[in-house]
C-alpha cells in the first residue's frame, strides 16, 4: 500500500514535471521541470528494485546532460516575440504528429500489454539480489557487442563535438609548458662585449 502510494506520488509528479517542461514560458523553468521529472523517474526506478539505474539516471542525466542543456539555454538569446512568430506555420505538422502519437498511445494502452494481470506478476527480488551485480554480469558478457558499440558511439560523439565546435583562435597566446621548462640559458641570453 505504501509502495502504491509512492508510485502514484512519483508518477503524478513526473507527469506534472513533464507538462511543466512543455508549458513553462521561461526556458530555464522548463529545464528545472525536466530535472524534477528525472528525479521522480529515478524514484520510479527505485520502486522497481533498479537502484543502479535510478542512481545512474540522476548521475548522468541530472548531473551531466542537464548541465549541458542549461549551458546551451543560458547562452541562447531567447526572443519571446520571435518564438511565437512561426506558431501558425508549424501548427498543421505539429498537430498531425500529436494526433498520430495520441492514436498510438490509445492503441498501445488498449492492446492488453498494460493489463493489471501481467503487471501484478512482477514482484520484488529476493534480499540478496544486487541490481548492480546483476547488470554487470549480463552487460559485460551477454551484451558485449552492444557495450563495445557504445564505446564507438561515444568516440564518434567526442570527435563530432570537437569538429563542430572547436575553432582555434589565432590571436590567443598559448602557454607551452614543456617549452618553458626546457628553455636553457643559451636560448635567451646573449653576451655582448662592451
Amino acid at each position, binding site marked *: 500500500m*505504501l509502495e502504491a502510494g509512492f508510485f502514484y506520488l512519483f508518477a503524478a509528479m513526473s507527469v506534472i514535471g513533464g507538462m511543466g517542461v512543455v508549458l513553462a514560458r*521561461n526556458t*530555464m*523553468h522548463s529545464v*528545472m521541470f525536466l*530535472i524534477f521529472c528525472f528525479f521522480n523517474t529515478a524514484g520510479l526506478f527505485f520502486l522497481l528494485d533498479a*537502484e*543502479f539505474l535510478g*542512481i*545512474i539516471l*540522476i*548521475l548522468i542525466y*541530472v*548531473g*551531466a546532460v542537464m*548541465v549541458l542543456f*542549461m*549551458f546551451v539555454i*543560458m547562452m541562447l538569446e531567447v526572443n519571446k516575440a520571435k518564438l511565437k512568430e512561426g506558431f501558425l506555420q508549424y501548427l498543421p505538422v505539429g498537430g498531425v504528429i500529436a494526433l498520430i502519437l495520441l492514436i498510438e498511445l490509445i492503441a498501445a494502452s488498449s492492446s492488453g500489454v498494460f493489463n493489471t494481470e501481467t503487471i501484478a506478476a512482477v514482484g520484488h527480488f529476493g534480499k540478496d539480489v*544486487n*541490481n*548492480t551485480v546483476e547488470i554487470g554480469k549480463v552487460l559485460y558478457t551477454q551484451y558485449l557487442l552492444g557495450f563495445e558499440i557504445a564505446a564507438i558511439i561515444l568516440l564518434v560523439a567526442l570527435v563530432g563535438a570537437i569538429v563542430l565546435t572547436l575553432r582555434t583562435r589565432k590571436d590567443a597566446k598559448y*602557454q607551452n*609548458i614543456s617549452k618553458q621548462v626546457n628553455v636553457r640559458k643559451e636560448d635567451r641570453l646573449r653576451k655582448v662585449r662592451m
Partner: protein
Amino acid sequence: MGWLDMAITAGIWALEILAIAVPVALTVAYTTYIERRVIGIMQIRKGCNRVGPFGLLQPLADGLKLFLKETIIPTNANKLLFIAAPVMALVPALVAFAVVPFGETRLFGIWDEAHVMAVAHLNVGLLYVLAIGSLSIYGVLMAGWASNSKYALIGAVRATCQMISYEISMGFALVCVLMLAGSMDLAKIVDAQAGGFWHWYIIPLFPMFLVYFISGCAESNRTPFDLVEGEAEIVAGHIVEYSGMWFATFSLAEYGAMILISLLTCILFLGGWHAPIEALDFIPGTVWLLLKAAFFIFVFIWFRATFPRYRYDQMMRLGWKIFLPWTLGWVAVLGICTYAGELNHSLQFLSDMIGFYQPWRS
C-alpha cells in the same frame, strides 16, 4: 504494519536524520571558527578571540548578525530561481550525508549483530554520494543565471566548468577503490580495510588518494581552486547579488561539502572507523573516523593558508591533462596487476600483492 507502527518508525527515522543533520550544521559553524583561528596562528596573529572564551561564541554572533541583515533581491533577477538557488545549493550538501556510515554499533550489546550507523545503508552508497555531489552544480548555476548580473554569470559558468572537469577524475579514482573492494556499499568498503593501517587503501592507491582529495578541493571550490570566487576579477562570482543569510547559505553548502569530502576520504582510503593498529580498538570507531576527518578538515584549512590561487588555464590543465590520464592509467594498472599471475607465472607476486587488499574476492 499498522498506521501506528509506521508513524513510530517514521519518527525514529526523523530523529536519526536530525541526529546527523544538526551536528553537521554545528560542525559547519565551528569549522568557520577553527578556520579563522588556525589561519590566524599560521599567519602569526590571534584570529577571533573576543566573543566568549577564546572567541568560541563567534559563530553564534556571526549567525545572529547574518540573520539581522537585509535581504536583497535585485529587480532584474529571476525571482523564482533566485530564491530557489540557495536551497538548491544546501540540499545536496546535506542529503549526501544520508549514506555516510559513521561506524558500527551493537548499541551497548543490545543488538546481536553490528548495525551500520547510517541513515540509509545503500548497496550503491558510493554512487549515491557521487550523484548527489554532482547536483551541487545547480545551486551555483542557478544563482549565477538568476541574478542577471555579469559577474554572477561569468562566475557561475567558470564554476560549473571547474566542477564538472574534476568530477571525471573523481569518478575514475572511485572506480579504482571499487576494483579493490568489489562493492559500492560504503560499509563494506570500510570493512575490506579492517585490520591495521597496512590494509588501508591509501597504500596501493596512494596516487588515487591524492587525486580524490585534490578533486574534492576543486569540487567544493576551496583554495587553491577558489577562482570561482575570484574577488579580484569577478567579485565573488555567482554569489555577488546575495546578502545576509542568503549569502551564508552558500557558504554553509561549501563547508558542508568540505566536511563530506573529508569523511569520504577517510572512509574510502583510510580505513573509516578502524583504528590504525588493532591494539587501539578500545577507542570507539566513530571517534577514530571523526578524528581522521578532523585532520582532513585541518588540511583543507592548511591549504587555504598556504597556497595561492590557481590560474584558470592551469586549473583546467590539471584536471583534464594530468588527473584524467593518470586515473585512467591506474585503472589499467590495477587490472593488469590483478591478472598478472594468470598471464605469466613469474608475475604472480603482483597478483598476490593486489590479492592482499581484496578480502572480498572469492
